[in-house]
């Protein structure tokens, strides 16, 4: 159980990573890009697909990220860069954790609960992040059918209420809508960066980079379809539907008699999201372990430490989500493309010695 199989990586790309884009991203894009919300999302998906392709090509070398950096830049520089990358992943994890918290507090409770209701998440994160990466691979095997069932369940209940004509005419939001949407969505698209800590642990098979990219695009197509249905249902009021995937299905005619049967799918997707939003934290811990030695106690200390830091951050930033979102899509937006769009191709270009060694 030491390596991640190609299938597990495909499941991650097609079924686990897209789920995190169904909470706040649709409302955010609808706010900035209006009926053109599909365009910035599609652009991001294409860019990420390219980066995913590069990251999976790196997996061919059967070397960890740290080994690649060390081979090119030396030990000290590799340690520094690896630490910076780990910090980036922790930074990237902030949004999904806060999203998850807001979703949980709004969707699973009639009245706003205390932060204590979300606190067990950090206990879970501390446990899960101390486990080796291969355990996550097995979890993706397990979660893929859950993710598909949740996604298609929600979509089936929602699609009847959608008026897809609301998406026309394309380009109505203009260039500002497109670029504004693109900029504000960077914080949700860092999927290629999540593959980098997995390098050296992936059991590379022939054609994996292409297939991985296609699986990622398939998952991305799922996101685009959902965005279209979401905007088709809520149109101008989409901006108010913050927790998109929990809102689209409630107009299904059977809900009146069955009750909120769609909650079954919402709960299933929340389970998948719980795992997807701890991925960056797990990636950060993996990076640290690669750089500073793989020891069991260190993994436990780091996962407990990271979970505590996030608990404190969530406590401190409880009512500041708007400001955080504004910062992530404004002054800090460049951090994401730097690490997830630039780093994989750079590693491909500058790691020739590694290629020879592999």
């Amino acid at each position, binding site marked *: 159980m030491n390596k991640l199989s190609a299938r597990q990586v495909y499941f991650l790309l097609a079924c686990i990573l897209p789920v995190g884009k169904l909470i706040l991203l649709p409302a955010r894009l609808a706010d900035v890009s209006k009926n053109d919300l599909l365009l910035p999302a599609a652009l991001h998906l294409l860019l990420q697909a390219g980066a995913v392709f590069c990251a999976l090509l790196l997996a061919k070398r059967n070397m960890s990220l740290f080994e690649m950096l060390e081979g090119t830049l030396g030990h000290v520089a590799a340690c520094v860069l690896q630490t910076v990358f780990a910090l980036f992943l922790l930074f990237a994890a902030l949004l999904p954790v806060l999203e998850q918290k807001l979703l949980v507090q709004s969707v*699973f409770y009639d009245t706003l609960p205390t932060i204590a209701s979300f606190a067990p998440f950090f206990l879970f994160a501390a446990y899960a992040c101390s486990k080796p990466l291969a355990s996550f691979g097995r979890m993706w095997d397990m979660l893929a059918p859950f993710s598909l069932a949740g996604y298609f369940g929600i979509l089936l209940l929602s699609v009847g209420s959608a008026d897809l004509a609301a998406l026309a005419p394309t380009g109505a939001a203009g260039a500002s809508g497109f670029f504004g949407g693109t900029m504000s969505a960077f914080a949700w698209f860092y999927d290629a960066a999540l593959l980098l800590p997995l390098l050296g642990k992936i059991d590379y098979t022939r054609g994996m980079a292409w297939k991985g990219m296609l699986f990622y695009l398939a998952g991305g197509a799922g996101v685009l379809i959902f965005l279209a249905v979401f905007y088709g249902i809520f149109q101008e009021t989409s901006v108010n539907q913050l927790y998109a995937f929990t809102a689209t299905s409630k107009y299904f005619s059977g809900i009146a008699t069955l009750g909120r049967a769609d909650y079954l799918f919402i709960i299933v997707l929340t389970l998948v999201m719980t795992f997807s939003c701890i991925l960056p934290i797990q990636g950060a811990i993996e990076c640290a372990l690669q750089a500073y030695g793989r020891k069991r106690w260190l993994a436990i200390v780091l996962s407990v430490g990271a979970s505590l830091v996030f608990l404190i951050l969530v406590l401190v930033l409880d009512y500041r989500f708007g400001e955080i979102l504004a910062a992530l899509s404004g002054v800090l937006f460049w951090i994401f493309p730097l690490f997830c769009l630039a780093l994989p191709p750079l590693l491909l270009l500058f790691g020739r010695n590694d290629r020879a060694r592999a």
Partner: protein
Amino acid sequence: MKQISGALQRDVAALKKLLPAEDILTFPFAAEGGTAFTVVFSDAVTNKELLGEEVVRPLRLLSGKPSLRAVKERVNFSEVRSEKSLKKLAEEILAGNPVLLWEGAEEGVIVGTKLVFVRAVAEPPTDVTIKGPREGFIEDVKINTSLIRRRFKTGELLLEPVTVGRRSKTIVMVCYLAGTSVEETVKEVKGKLEKIDIDYIPDSSYLTHFLSSRPYSLVKQVGTTEKPDIFCAKLAEGRVGLLVDGSPIALTVPYLLVEDFQSSEDYFVPSYRASFTRLLRLFALLVAIYLPAFYVAAQLFKLQLFPVKLLLTIAGSIRDIPFSPSLEMLLVLLVLEILNEASIRMPKYVGMALSVVGALVLGETAVSAGFVSTPAIIIVAFSGIGLYAVPNLIEQTSILRLSMLLVAGSVGTYGIVLLTGFTLFYLVTAENFGAPLMAPFSPLVKRDLRDSLIKYNLGSLPLRPKTLKSPNKRRLK
């Protein structure tokens, strides 16, 4: 190690010194030729009639100075061995096999006239089937071995005894099909058995602790069965089985969680029916674990989960209940667990009274007195029935159900989600004897899905499960 000296009196005295217990008897007699013999045996576990008729009577007719070979030939019994070591002879006497000594003997002769009290082979109460074999294992390892041997008339079936327990000297029969089971698994099983240093093994369940990679885990890691047909089917798939003397429950490794959703009957009915039943079992198990928890979470934190009409009914029922929903559910669940425990342990003739007390007094009266609500009783009843759809997992699921209820009462639906995530994560990381517990779902083994929760026709299952890594892959040609 002290050995037989040939001086009868001295040898008998030495054996009596090793076995000072009152039930170790000696029976001296003389042969026609004048040679003095003595049989040393354990009173309670030796078949004395057989000993007299088939051993003593023919030996009395022996003339001249008897040799070891002559004594062995004269005894009318197939199970005859000889041994020099006094300690080993003493062990045989304790096992019920009398030891024959005579003046001038170089070795003691062990005669296998052991007296064994066994119950008849019957259908096990834990695994009743409508179609298919009804035999069940009993407490005697030899009879259990014969039940296996009868089903595999091949020299590939190997039965290797290992003695476990310093005092009980319990025989554990390691059973496997050579060339089908993984050699490393057999070695690992034997290695783990040999390492056990315990004085007494009352049942096979003791061994599961030593065979598990996570002995303190909530989840079981060793398969159990009381039926020889299931046991043999598992051996045929490439597993290693263990029969423990004194226990009707056989063990099999490696164990996969999905095994407990399968019944032997699934293989004797059409595959669509078997698939339906397996899915039904999974559904029943999920209902058993989650229904009380979701009911409490919905009542406490998200009433919107109920349809309006149901919500009105529930609101009417719980209006005057003095307890919080979680406490109410916890109490009813605890009562169910107590009733369950009591009904298993109490004498059968009190069972009817228990049903009356349980169903009428506790159930109906508690509702009419306003202590608990009707929906809570209905939910716990559903959950209780669901639990028994997968009887091999009752211990685990009842604990999980209580845990789910506790997190639902304190954190709500998200608590249930997190505990589910935690449980799944724990399950996918568990493996024993090289097989992941959650296979073939995680890691996904496509081929093995054909006989998991869905069952394909026999013709579509030509290969043994890939998860078990059997060197002999094909079972159907």
